[in-house]
């Protein structure tokens, strides 16, 4: 069994061998800018040969004797208006402010950099590769005759979706904003919530062709340095042609790629991200996707919703316990049904057994086949409903309800008890608030059904033990996966399957080995007399 798994592992790891390395589009030697403008232009034209979206503009700087200038940028990635007014116009008109100074070839570069460009961010580069890189990332680059340097002016502006309510994680109570595709907007959403200089964001470029910006975000002094370094190390190690979504990174940085359980948490909500950062976790934001990664992930997280923290703690605890129960229903109900009907009929109370047996009288299939058929149908419907355009999606649900709910039962293919089981399982699986968490449960349901059909309750228990051994062996960035249950920690248990009130959660999760674990001061439990003076006043009044 293990040998077989290893073989599969080898197949996966062997795919990219040393020889067929991905071709990296990077000029090996450093090409410095020349002081001859025409030469630079020629080089840039050859680099951007057949790139129709690159805009190049030659112009003259209005000095005593006109100096040639050259502006290059990618059309659509910059703010045209800003460039026209703040870059081109100020260069083409000779400003009268600088009467005292004579502009000539030797000092034109510095004067332009210091006095003329009224954009906020200006950088100097002298390397052709850097120039190309900056152009590609949406900056305008200014080249001037006689100077072997280029001015990179930040006028980036790309088409963006506005901040909307995240579709995958809706809340009843809580902030309505969600991450968007632009990395900068996303970091702003986080910074707005955590106004501290200890919030660090480090940018890495991943992808040899896509050159995607990846930001590693953490709170300095709270997050465990070891974990932060490990995250950076794993991200730097990645060599891939393009990163289009954060899942590309997820598969590269997780601890056990063959595990069915998600080891990286994802979110679309800045508030959830900030809550995790405050717990000492590390966030990974990827440009061009609203889905962000949070590591290390622990299993209880996948049963948590940000709303648990916005509702009062008794309600939150109730819903969390509810989800814990529904997760088990989603995982085990069909297999328990199979096991009881196939092996342990005596466990059912007699009236219930008679009722179920009566319904199953005309059903031609054994319980296992019946269950697996209906579960498959449900998975078909779910998949169909997700991929279809919304108007057709409704048609799917009507067909599904009719086919499953009515026709199958009246045709005598399945018993109505089975329909109950499948729909209960479905509803239960919808209560798992994270997508990756519910995927794990959905897939594991099928092996559990096979085990139940072959060994009854014993098989189910064996399956559960196998899952338990597996999750006990899992780690996410060094943190045991099912903390705080095992290893048990009473202070971390306060925020796991239950949620204690905020004033009782004095420490941040211990399991991450945080530097600064104190969250708030002790003894803030509110009561009727929160202020002693008020209390006295009240008494004298009465």
């Amino acid at each position: 069994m293990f040998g077989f798994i290893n073989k599969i592992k080898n197949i996966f790891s062997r795919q990219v061998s040393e020889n067929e390395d991905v071709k990296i589009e990077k000029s090996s030697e450093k090409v410095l800018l020349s002081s001859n403008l025409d030469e630079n232009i020629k080089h840039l034209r050859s680099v951007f040969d057949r790139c129709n979206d690159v805009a190049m503009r030659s112009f003259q700087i209005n000095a005593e004797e006109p100096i040639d200038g050259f502006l290059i940028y990618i059309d659509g990635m910059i703010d045209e208006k800003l460039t026209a007014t703040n870059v081109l116009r100020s260069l083409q008109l000779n400003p009268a402010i600088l009467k005292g100074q004579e502009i000539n070839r030797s000092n034109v570069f510095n004067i332009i950099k210091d006095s003329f460009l009224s954009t906020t961010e200006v950088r100097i580069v002298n390397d052709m590769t850097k120039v190309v890189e900056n152009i590609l990332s949406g900056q305008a680059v200014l080249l001037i005759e006689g100077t072997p340097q280029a001015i990179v002016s930040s006028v980036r502006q790309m088409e963006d979706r506005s901040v909307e309510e995240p579709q995958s994680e809706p809340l009843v109570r809580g902030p309505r904003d969600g991450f968007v595709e632009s990395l900068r907007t996303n970091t702003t959403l986080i910074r707005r919530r955590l106004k501290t200089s200890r919030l660090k964001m480090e940018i890495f470029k991943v992808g040899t062709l896509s050159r995607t910006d990846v930001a590693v975000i953490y709170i300095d002094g709270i997050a465990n340095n070891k974990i932060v370094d490990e995250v950076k190390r794993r991200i730097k190690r990645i060599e891939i042609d393009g990163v289009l979504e954060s899942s590309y990174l997820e598969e590269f940085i997780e601890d056990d790629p063959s595990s069915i359980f998600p080891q990286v948490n994802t979110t679309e909500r800045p508030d959830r991200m900030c809550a995790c950062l405050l717990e000492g976790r590390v966030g990974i934001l990827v440009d061009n996707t609203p889905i962000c990664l949070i590591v290390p992930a622990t299993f209880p997280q996948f049963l948590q919703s940000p709303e648990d923290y916005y509702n009062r703690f008794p309600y939150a605890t109730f819903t969390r316990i509810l989800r814990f129960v529904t997760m088990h229903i989603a995982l085990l109900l069909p297999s328990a049904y199979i096991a009881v009907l196939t092996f342990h009929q005596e466990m059912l109370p007699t009236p219930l057994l008679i009722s179920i047996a009566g319904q199953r009288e005309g059903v031609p299939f054994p319980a296992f086949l019946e269950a697996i058929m209906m579960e498959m149908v449900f998975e078909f419907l779910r998949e169909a409903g997700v991929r279809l355009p919304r108007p057709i999606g409704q048609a799917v649900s009507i067909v599904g309800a009719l086919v499953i709910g009515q026709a199958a039962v009246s045709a005598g293919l399945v018993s109505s008890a089975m329909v109950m089981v499948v729909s209960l399982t479905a509803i239960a699986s919808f209560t798992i608030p994270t997508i990756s968490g519910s995927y794990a449960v959905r897939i594991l349901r099928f092996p559990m059904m096979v085990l139940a059909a072959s060994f009854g309750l014993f098989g189910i228990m064996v399956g559960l033990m196998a899952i338990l051994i597996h999750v006990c062996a899992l780690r996410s960035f060094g943190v045991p996966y099912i903390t705080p249950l095992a290893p048990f920690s009473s202070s971390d248990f306060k925020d796991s399957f239950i949620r204690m009130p905020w004033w009782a959660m004095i420490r941040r999760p211990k399991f991450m080995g945080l530097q600064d674990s104190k969250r708030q001061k002790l003894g803030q439990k509110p009561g009727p007399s929160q202020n002693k003076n008020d209390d006295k006043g009240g008494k004298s009044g009465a």
Partner: protein
Amino acid sequence: MVLEKGKVSSRQGVLLLTFTVVVSTAVLTVPAITAAAAGRDGWICTLVVATVYGLLTALVIIKLWQRFPNKTIIEYSQIIAGPLGKVVGAAYILWFIHINSVVVREFGDFILTSFMPETPLIAFIIILLILGAWATKSGLEVICRANEFIFPLFTLSIAGVFLLAMQEADFSNLLPVMENGIKPILRGSWAPMAWRGEIIVVSMLLPYVDDSDNIGKYLAYSVIIIGIILTFATVFTTAVIGELTKYLSFPFFELARCITIGRFIERVEALVLVMWVAGVTIKVATFFYIASLGTGQLLGLSDYRPVVLPLGLLLGVWSLELFESSIQSIQWLTEVFPFYAFVFELGIPLVLLIIAVLTKKGGQQKSE
């Protein structure tokens, strides 16, 4: 050479693990075995005599560990007894494997007779050994963590059976106390004593416990808590089932069968099954692990994982061929196992300790 790089806390590795290792099988069979010899006084055997013996064993283990804080019994027996120590180590490994195959067989017989009489025994043995091998390969930390997770479920289901059986219990079944004097009690104590002595497994684990201050305390707690749980089991089976206890193979299981709640929930023995599978998996994994680790240490391997598969095959065949029927296994557990176990649980460690004291081997000081 360190074969196990993981570290566990003393709560995980000593208190909880020994509890599961002993209780998971003892709670099912011990009441019948003590009842056969001591009748209704079985609870005295489990409460008093076995606990004293267990504490004595714990004392010897701790004393040896204090002399050799970073060594397992396989390693320090070689230091103490020289070349003979190798033989002792090999004997221990064989004993671990043997006990493990008995556990696996007991488990197979139980599932076979109680739940699925038509499935071949080998199926259960293979499944259990796959789980055990997987846990063993994952290492000590994983076994301890899995045990920590199931510990509350395990204790709750045992406590649940006791609570629900309360209404069926007739405690006058326990009277009169010590009708036939002390002799039958001593005779009935052999089995619970041998089971309590299984805490010897920690002599293989103590080097990997990272907070050594609590080890002695937790080991003693464990012995006492096991005593209390087993006493409850004996008392309740006697109170509910009465004189018949000694004729049953798995009296605790029958106890669960007696339970009805409001005429609707009947036959909650599935609770026992859940407890049994979870507990036995941990027990088998623990013995499997220490046997593999011991083999690795004895042969001077750099990793114990390669021996897991051969040991698993050995375990499977051995447990299949061990007994011809479950009656024979009960007989073996009653008549042979205790004396066989005493040699390894108390005898050899005591001799090793005496030699170590006389020859002044090993550090006297406690590890920091």
